[in-house]
Structures are given as C-alpha cells and as structure tokens.
C-alpha cells in the first residue's frame, strides 16, 4: 500500500519507455495510477532537539548572529508555531550562499557595469555572498552608532525598526543599497521557510504545515480533485528527504 508510486518501480517502468527508441513501448505502468492507493502514509519521525545541527559553512560568527536574529523577526515563532529560526532558515541561507546561488554562478556577470532603470533589472556587480557580507557589516555599524550595539543584541522592537528602515530604504548603508539587502534576505527567508527540507530549512516541514501544503509526494490527485471540492485535503506532509531516506516510501506491491 502506498500513497505514491514507489520510486524504484517508477524509475524502472519509465526507464524502459522514456529512453526507448523503438515504439510504442509506452507508459503502460501508469495505467496503474487510478488504482494507486492513497493515504495514509506513516508519519515521519519528528526531528531531534531544536538547535541540533546548527552548523555554518559560509557565514562567520557575526553574520550568524545577525541572520539568526533577523529571520526570527521576519517569521517569528508564535502561537501558530515555529518561525524561521526554528525552521532552520539560517542554515538554508548559509548553504545557498556557499553554492551556485551565493556566487551568482548562473548570472550574467560581464561588464560594463552601468546603473540602469529599475525596469532593466539588477545591474550591480555584487553577488549574494557579497550582498550579505557587506550588508551585515554595514547594518551592524549603523546599529552600533544608532543603538550602541550590533543588530543581534538589540531589543526585538529595535530590530523590527531596523528591518523596516532597510525595507523602505530609509536607512542608508555604505556599500549595499538597503532595499536590495532587505529584499535578498526577505526572499531567501521565504525560500528557506517553504523550500523542501533537503536544503536545510523548513525543518520538520513547519512551513508546509503552517499553510496546509502536502509537499513533494507523488500523489495521483486525479481521483481527488472533485472528491475534495470545498473540502481541505489534509495529510502529513512528505518531503523529498522523507522519500529518499525511506521514511515515507514503501512499495505498492
């Protein structure tokens, strides 16, 4: 019994047809789809203690403290459940920064560098690694001057004030436009809260649980679309990692 096609079986069956040069081997295996049983799958194990595994590859200690505080203001822990910090968003951002995203690996980075119109999109030389590094230093200098301490050590209300000032561009930073820094942090925080947990955020799928998103399982919703008219389809969310590790994987044989 399974909620989705067993990965091994699927690859086997698609493999035959997908790369076949002779016709028409077809996708006969998928005729099974309507009979594919659905729920329930076993609830995956809860993750270990909070704080376990908080390691960093890119961010230094000053930056770690900043990010941990900032993301907790953007998506706070509250009566609705864990926030970005508990979801592992700092680790998500760190891993993004050490990889292709952080170095602008798939950006067009040839000059000349010219300031354009907003409609022409991003035109700065800074890649995300540099935006975070320079931005956090600038913001901490501003906080030191204005409040007498780095961002991470300010009171929550002061941190919110700073984030609002960055968002609106009212705070001017030395190297990085404040609004650029804010939007980068904001986009990455949302990503880290809602992306698959394989990237280090959305721990225990808290982002998905918050909104009621079932995740990455390969469910045949064909039969359910109409059955669930005006009715919430509520399941234990399943992540890519759950399936890869076998937590939520079982064959339908």
């Amino acid at each position, binding site marked *: 019994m399974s909620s*989705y096609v067993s*990965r091994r079986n*699927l*690859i086997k069956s*698609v*493999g035959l*047809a*997908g*790369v076949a*040069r002779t*016709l*028409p081997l077809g*996708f006969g295996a*998928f005729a099974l*789809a309507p009979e594919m049983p659905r729920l329930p799958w076993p609830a995956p194990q809860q993750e270990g203690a909070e704080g376990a595994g908080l390691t960093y590859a890119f961010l230094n200690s000053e930056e770690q403290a900043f990010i941990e505080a900032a993301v907790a203001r953007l*998506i*706070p822990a509250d009566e*609705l459940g864990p926030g970005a910090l508990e979801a592992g968003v700092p680790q998500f951002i760190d891993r993004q920064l050490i990889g*292709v995203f952080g170095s602008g*690996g*798939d*950006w*067009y980075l*040839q000059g000349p560098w*010219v300031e354009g*119109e*907003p*409609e*022409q*999109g*991003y*035109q700065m030389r800074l890649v995300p690694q540099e935006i975070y590094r320079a931005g956090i230093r600038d913001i901490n200098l501003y906080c030191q001057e204005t409040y007498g301490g780095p961002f991470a050590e300010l009171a929550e209300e002061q941190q*919110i004030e700073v*984030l609002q000032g960055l968002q609106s561009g009212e705070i001017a930073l030395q190297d990085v436009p404040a609004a650029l820094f804010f939007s980068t942090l904001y986009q990455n*925080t*949302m*990503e880290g809260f*809602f*992306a*698959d947990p394989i990237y280090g955020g959305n721990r225990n799928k808290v982002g998905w649980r*918050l*909104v*009621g*998103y*079932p995740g*990455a*399982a*390969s*469910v*045949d*919703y*064909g039969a*359910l*679309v*109409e059955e*669930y*008219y005006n*009715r*919430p389809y509520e399941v234990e969310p399943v992540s*890519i990692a759950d399936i890869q590790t076998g937590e939520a994987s079982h064959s339908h044989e």
Partner: protein
Amino acid sequence: MAIKKDPVDAVVVGMGWAGGIMAKELAQAGLTVVGLERGPYRNTAPHFQPPEIHDELRYARRHGLMQNLRRETNTFRNNPRQRALPMRQWAYGQGAYPLGEGLGGSGVHWNGQSWRFLPWDFETRSRTVERYGEEAIPPDATIQDWGITYDDLEPYYDKFEYAAGISGQAGNLQGQTQEGGNPFEGPRQRDYPLPPLKTAYSGLLFWEGAERLGYHPFPSPAGNQSQAYTNPDGVAMGRCLYCGFCSKYGCEVAAKSSPLTTVLPVVLGLDNFQLRTHANVIRVNLDDTRTRAVSVTYVDAQGREIEQPADIIVLAAYALNNVRLLLLSGIGQTYDPMSGEGLIGKNYSYQFISAVSAFFEDRVFNPFMSAGAMATVVDDFNGDNFDHTGLGFIGGGFIAQFTGEAAPINTHPVPLGTPPWGSEWKRAAAENYRRAFTIITHGAVLSYRNNYLDLDPTYRDAYGQPLLRMTFNWTDNELRMADFLTNKAALIAREAGASDINIFRLARTFSIVPGQATHNNGGAIMGADPATSVVNPYLQMWDVPNLFVVGASAFPQNTGYNPTETVGALAYWTADAIRNRYLKNPGPLA
C-alpha cells in the same frame, strides 16, 4: 580552423517543438538530418523523476531547467533612446521570460496551454480596417496579415493536437457550436483527441460566476493528458496526475505534451537522424551569391568550432535566437526604426498578463491538485469576439482561472494591506493558502515601430558574439486593453463570491523583472510580400530559399493566446511544403 563534417540533407538548429517536429518530418521523408542543440540531453527518466523533480526551489525559483544566463542572455531597454543593459539574473523565480535550453526546449517545462489562434488573428489588419476603419489602427502600429488564413492552418493544428495528445472540449465542430466548448473558436474538422481535464473547485466557481455574467466559460485546451494516450506515430503517453509540479518542471509520467514525449522518440529511433547536444550554433554560412545557405558553424562542448554543411538549413532556435542567428550571420537587412528600412528584427511583440486574486471566507480549495493547463477560461473578450467601438484599443485576450503553480514559496497569497512579514503576515498566509485563487488576463500585444530586436553594440556572450538587444514597451493599446480585461476579471471574481480581491494591473512601463508571459514573437515575420516580410508563407527566407526559419519569430504581431500550438502547426505546415513540393523542385515555394 573549423572541423568540417560530411554534408547531410538537412540540419536543424534547436531541438524544441519547432525543431523536433521539423527533424522528425524531414527524417521520416528519408533525408539525412542532423539536430543541433546547445543544451544537454535529458528525458523523462531519469531526469524528471520524483521525488527530486518535485523541488520548487530548484525548478520554479532557480529555473533549473532553463537557459544558463552565465553563457548567454539578452540586453533590454524600453525605448531606442535608452542604453540597453543585460538581463543578468532570474530573480527568485521571476524574470520576464525564462528561456529554454536542452533537449525538448521549453516544451519540457511549459504548462501545456494549447491554443488555436482565431481566424481573425491571421488577418488582424485587414479585418480591423474592414470593421472599424483605418483610423482604428493605433499610430505607429506595424501590424499586418499573416499571408495565410486559419483555414490553411486548420489541418496542421489538427495534426499537432493529435501528435501531442491535447485534452479539450471542441467549441465549433465543422461550423456547429458545441455545448461546453469555446463558441468563439474557428471551425475544427474534429474534436480534440482527449476529453478535457477535470475542473478544479476554483475553476467551477469561476465558471458559475462567468456564466451568471453572460460569458461563455469552457475548460482550457491542455497539453496535459486527461487519459493515457498513444499518438498516430505510436508514441504512448501517461495520464496526468494533477501533481502540481508542472510549469517549470518536467513531467514524471510523460503526461505533458512535450517534444520528448511525442516527436523526439520517433526521430531518435531513425538511423538517418543524428542528435548532437552541447552544440551551440554561432552562425549560418552563405555562399558568395548570398542566396544559398551552405552550412552552419557551431561550437561543441570542448570548444571546437565545427562546420556542418547541409542542403536544407532549418533555424528552430526559439523566436529570439532565430532572429539573433540571422543577425549574427548577416542575413537580410537589419531593421532600423528611424528609417523604417530593413526587416530583420522588425515587429517584435510580446504579451501581457494582469491578475486578480480572489479571497473567500467560506470556501476551501486544494491548490496543489493542479495541472499546468488545468483552467477555466472565457474568450468573450479575445481577438475581435466583441465590439471594440469606442473602447480605444483593438485586439483582446482571454480571462482564466488557472490552477498552475501552487507550491508555497511562490504562492502564499495574502489580502492587500497585510504586512509582508511578522506574525500578522504569518497568520494571513496560514489562513489564505487554501482560501484564494487567481484569475489572469492574457492579452495581445501588437507590433509597433519602436519595439524591435537587433544586436547589442556592447555586451557579448561566452562565445564572444554580440547579445541580442530588445527594445520594447507597452503602448496605450495594451494599457487600455489590460485595464478593460482586468476589470472584467475583477467582476467575475466578485460574481464568483470573493469576499476580498487584490487587483494586479499592468504596470505602465514594461519591466523584465517580474515573471510574466513567456511569449516572445516576431523579428523574422512571415507574409505574402517580400517587401514586408522576412519569410514567405512557408517560413522560407525570401532571399535564401534553402533556409527555413521556424517558430514564433514568424508571427507578424501577437494574439491573446499562448503561441506554442501555432508554432507546432506552422512547423507541420512548413515540413509538409518541403516534403511535398520543395524536395521535388528545390527553390522558392512562393
């Protein structure tokens, strides 16, 4: 020194829908064919398999299946007085028009909205003049008729629909209006090969609201297979799972019409076809007379320059790259907006999308049960389906409730006025994810004197070649049309019972930052007159008859619909002309 390969009968540049269809049709006619694709090989398995393919960050946010901008992009400006600058990044799932790369092209990660254009669309200029007079044509619009009609293309639309396994509900069968279909569509000789997809609950509410307003809702034609299907070439496709990972993803069960699930399996099985991936074509070479193309030159994965001679050369590298390759090869005269002289790059057009988010207090949706083209549509305000007198614009678009993308990084709607972060945002996101849907408008953009493509004077790609430069902006015609359509969409949202709506109007100035329509057209347009078109009605270069330029580059202006079914139909139409006429007597077909 370039390595020179043995000549073949035909070389096809680009292995998307246009190239895949051309390669298959020419190879099946017995020609030796080489297919050149700048991107990698990929296929349903192992590349699009779950769980890994169900990764919103990688595919919908980072555009994992699309063009790597590090090697190539285009530059952009709103008008000829500005300095064009490169589109440097896909920002967080945005980027106006993500471009395809790799076997199957964008056909791998499209939604599958599969439209026939209206009969009116092929005769935009003459029918507008006929009904509203010359003065209804906006100043500076350079619109013209296609040189073919809907009736010419109808058999080839049919061919595409049956090859691709399109799901839909006929609205006009041989002139008879069909219940539940689009009453405005041109007559079709037979029904779709597959019944329409299911209707989402959101689509049902849209349907009911639209109907109460007197409009004519119908299920979107979809390149997502509502049932398992085997096409006339014997290629089998799976049934759509409504998996919710469709647009920007490959399909795990081969239930999305794609070159990889239709034409490429056939041609890859033929001994007279050879596929070369990682082959980036940099130019077409002409002979001394400049009236015959002799070969193409490409750079392979190892950086070697390779020349491939062929008797027939087909450019099918997407609308933008078709134009760029013509410009890089010095073929034809580059368009100059000042003098109006030259044709290559002229009549570039785009498409607009505006949206209305509808929030409901007493309804629950499951937005993740969705397919790329699972939608309910009204076509009452498309083309010339309505009287434009006094409206101040011509053309139109469709209004639709698309299920589309629903993964939560990109999709977590909150009512206007909600702060974008903090506890209040969090509560709104939690409350509304299942209580909202979006209605989009999808509108035509005409062609204008100052919207065009040429080569950038400054910026270059990784091969040292000039980037394509795009000069484009909306004009009053689109802005008025967008407002008109957006108001209608809001009306439907209210009628559907929304308690709250967010209206996203078309910004007054076009920006390449937000994600929007992926539909670039024109620049190498077709027509009946060599003085006003680059290719003849068979997509054959007037000046160079053994060179065919296949794709939306041929559209003289855009319509309200997504382009791909028309790109596919034009490819079949062109291939047919080559097979049945050109091969017997190589030379101009018109």
